[in-house]
């Protein structure tokens, strides 16, 4: 079994030469941006993204999500902060290709990332947060076993009102029970 391959997707290194153009296109989708980032929506140049992809800092595990069917880049996923002594990491996922929203691709990639986090990196805990009202994300996280841990009230401002930031976490023991059931 390839630990980075799921049922619908596989996680690969992003290719700066071919992927930057696609990610730059996603950055022009402001709704997508707001779900994926907390800084203001702002179109990004292909060259800027290319440079970032080339850096590949070793303290974070970033992957490109590709479909198994046709190897198409549909999103990005990663552990962006790892506290090694505590073995806790924060994760993020974004599916830039809207055609692949709500079809199980994100959840599949998430499971692959979690398997890698708990069974290769041997983390103790994975944490995440997301925007209030993002039901698609919430369902996907719950399906992977994440539990709700609280909300930062009014943490974000969009469209003239405040929105909560919701937090979830998944412990190693909880993951292993789920993984062994499958």
């Amino acid at each position, binding site marked *: 079994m390839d630990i980075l391959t799921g049922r619908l997707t596989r996680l690969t290194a992003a290719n700066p030469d071919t992927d930057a153009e696609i990610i730059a296109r996603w950055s022009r989708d402001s709704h997508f941006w707001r779900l994926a980032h907390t800084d203001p929506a702002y179109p990004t140049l292909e060259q800027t993204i290319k440079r970032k992809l080339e850096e590949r800092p070793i303290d974070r595990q970033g992957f490109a999500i590709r479909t198994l069917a046709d190897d198409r880049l549909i999103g990005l996923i990663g552990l962006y902060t790892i506290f090694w002594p505590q073995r806790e990491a924060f994760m993020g996922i974004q599916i830039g290709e809207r055609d692949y929203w709500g079809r199980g691709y994100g959840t599949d990639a998430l499971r692959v990332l979690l398997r890698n986090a708990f069974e290769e990196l041997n983390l103790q805990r994975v944490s995440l947060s997301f925007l209030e009202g993002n039901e698609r994300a919430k369902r996907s996280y719950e399906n992977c076993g994440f539990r709700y841990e609280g909300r930062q009230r*009014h943490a974000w401002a969009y469209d003239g009102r405040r929105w909560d930031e919701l937090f979830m*976490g998944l412990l190693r023991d909880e993951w292993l029970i789920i993984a062994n059931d499958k």
Partner: protein
Amino acid sequence: MLTDQLFEGQHIRFAPPDADRDAERVSKWTHDPEYLRLLSADIAKPLSPGQIKKQYEELDKDAEKHNAFNFAVRLQEDDRLIGFARLYRIEWTHGTGSVQIGLGDRNDRGKGYGTEVLHMLLRYAFDELNLYRLAAMTVEYNTGAIRFFERAGFNVEVRRRQAVQRDGKRWDVLMLGLLCDEWKRAE
């Protein structure tokens, strides 16, 4: 009229961080594991004055980007450094940030200095920086910090289960929050 003083309190004052003057003293604090473990979940380790200076340079970089505001806390009576206060991880479009306070010497704790520091830090965050909300983070074993922030109006909002392991036990990390409106009502 405008508030008369932002940096002068009754017993303490906010001064700019001064690595040349304070590195030696701050380095001494890092030899106290209890202090470090109450302060954060980062790895506790003693730092030399030279390492402290480097740390201060890093803090300066954040300050230059206006993502953070760092203060040295000094006593009014003899100008002695007793700790630090900072606002960091500021996201300007959302008007949010985080607070952290440390009093390095245990003899300076329990005298009300911390309460005064927090009061001044919140005033600075809400009345000068015009932030909308603040967060504070602590580990569940630090019951003193939880009470300290709750007394100032913070609410526990998030409990990251078992996020910290120390002395063979796993502990929750608590994230507290305070909205500007709540603070104004309490003032």
